[in-house]
């Protein structure tokens, strides 16, 4: 292979004229982190609400929740991003559409909203599974001491359900970070976008993607370690299903 390794490329000015390649990398990292964190917060909040709705005793509410999940998880993420970014501004009244198109950082807003909705459907599915994995008597016990339905969820069902689904939620959190790379298709200059730009400007493809890979791995390892710490932190003495408290 005839490849001219040049790690010093990171300290050369990027042709955009705004800083070195290394600087552009860190901006990309910043967009990746902010897009995935916002999307994840949104997914966790929406997913919890929808997941809860899908376990309520009201059939039409359950169906509504089911429809939400199927809508957002059955369409590829990249298609959803295109729909939010290219199609939505054409569907709304012209003034609103123009406003959307002229938004500064429009690709960032569209990327985290699309990713947030997409991930929320998956979180909703896990929250539902977590709640349904609890013994049926738990809900009854909460109800029997006079708790209202929202109180039963808040004090009895969700604290246990979340402990049980920490491992799949960890994977989902990591997926959110990795999926944020799809944002480059609507012009978000996140980490992968920056690596590609560097490859195109400098032809140093290996350096560019090595750096991106390392950055992604650092983020996901941080997530794994944080979630493991959290899992141990909330483990219940004498209760085996959540964490390894008894082992």
């Amino acid at each position: 292979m005839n490849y001219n390794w040049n790690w010093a490329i990171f300290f050369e000015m990027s042709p955009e004229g705004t800083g070195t390649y290394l600087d552009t990398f860190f901006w990309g990292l910043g967009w990746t982190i902010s897009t995935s964190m916002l999307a994840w917060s949104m997914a966790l909040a929406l997913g919890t609400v929808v997941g809860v709705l899908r376990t309520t005793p009201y059939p039409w509410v359950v169906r509504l929740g089911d429809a939400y999940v199927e809508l957002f998880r059955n369409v590829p993420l990249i298609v959803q991003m295109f729909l939010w970014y290219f199609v939505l501004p054409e569907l709304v009244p012209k003034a609103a559409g123009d406003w959307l198109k002229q938004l500064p950082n429009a690709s960032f807003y569209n990327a985290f909203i699309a990713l947030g909705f997409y991930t929320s459907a998956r979180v909703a599915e896990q929250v539902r599974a977590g709640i349904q994995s609890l013994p049926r008597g738990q809900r009854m016990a909460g109800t029997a001491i006079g708790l209202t339905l929202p109180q039963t969820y808040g004090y009895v069902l969700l604290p246990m359900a979340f402990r049980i689904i920490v491992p799949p939620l960890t994977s989902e959190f990591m997926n959110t970070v990795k999926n944020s790379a799809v944002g480059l298709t609507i012009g978000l200059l996140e980490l992968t976008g920056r690596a590609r730009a560097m490859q195109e400007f400098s032809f140093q493809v290996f350096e560019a993607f090595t750096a991106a890979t390392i950055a992604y791995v650092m983020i996901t390892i941080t997530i794994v370690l944080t979630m493991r710490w959290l899992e141990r932190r909330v483990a219940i003495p004498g209760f085996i299903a959540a964490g390894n408290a008894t082992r």
Partner: protein
Amino acid sequence: MAMIEIRNVSKWYGEFNVLKDCSTTVDKGQVVVVCGPSGSGKSTLIKCVNALEPFQQGDITVNGQSLCDPATNLPKLRAHIGMVFQNFELFPHMRVLDNLNLGQTKVLKRDRATARDRSLELLKRVGLEAHAQKYPGELSGGQQQRVAIARALAMDPIAMLFDEPTSALDPEMINEVLDVMVALAKEGMTMMVVTHEMGFARQVAHRVIFMDEGSIVEDTSKEEFFGSPRSERAQQFLSKILHH
């Protein structure tokens, strides 16, 4: 005075008729034992009393309040009916003390100190004050069930429902739970108890209800039930469980 009045209650799970026109009353201070073979609907009936299970026909009133009346605040009514489950159903993520405090602070709106005092008093009563800071998973089955009884009592109930409270316990733990229940009965608590513990029925029950295939087959005083069961099915059932 009737504390619990069940009038012509029928319930279906789809096509399956689990309760067939059941009627009975539990007077204030009475202990009524409900027994019968598995699948006879006794657990379903007792869960109907605090509206944990919906029913399609008939009515149940507790302390004069009808469960079917839309004006009845069900959570409020349930707060005053203690319920003890077969599988304890303590909240595993809360310490024993917090299991007892939850209903008191969130439903009865007691302040934390009052709730705590009441909880500790009840834990002492069931002999578990030393375990107040433990989690349910660290206790034995018998201890967990006693905590569950204390949790129900913490709400100062006007009646207590027991749904097979000793069925999930190892034999050596049954008595510690029954002792607590006997003490409660002797204090004049209104109790409806689904159980196969005929010794308990003999000792404290005022009446025994025998159910079979969703119907109340017998509803008699204890003396009459153990003396001369009238239905053949009840006689068969008794001869099976009173052998040893």
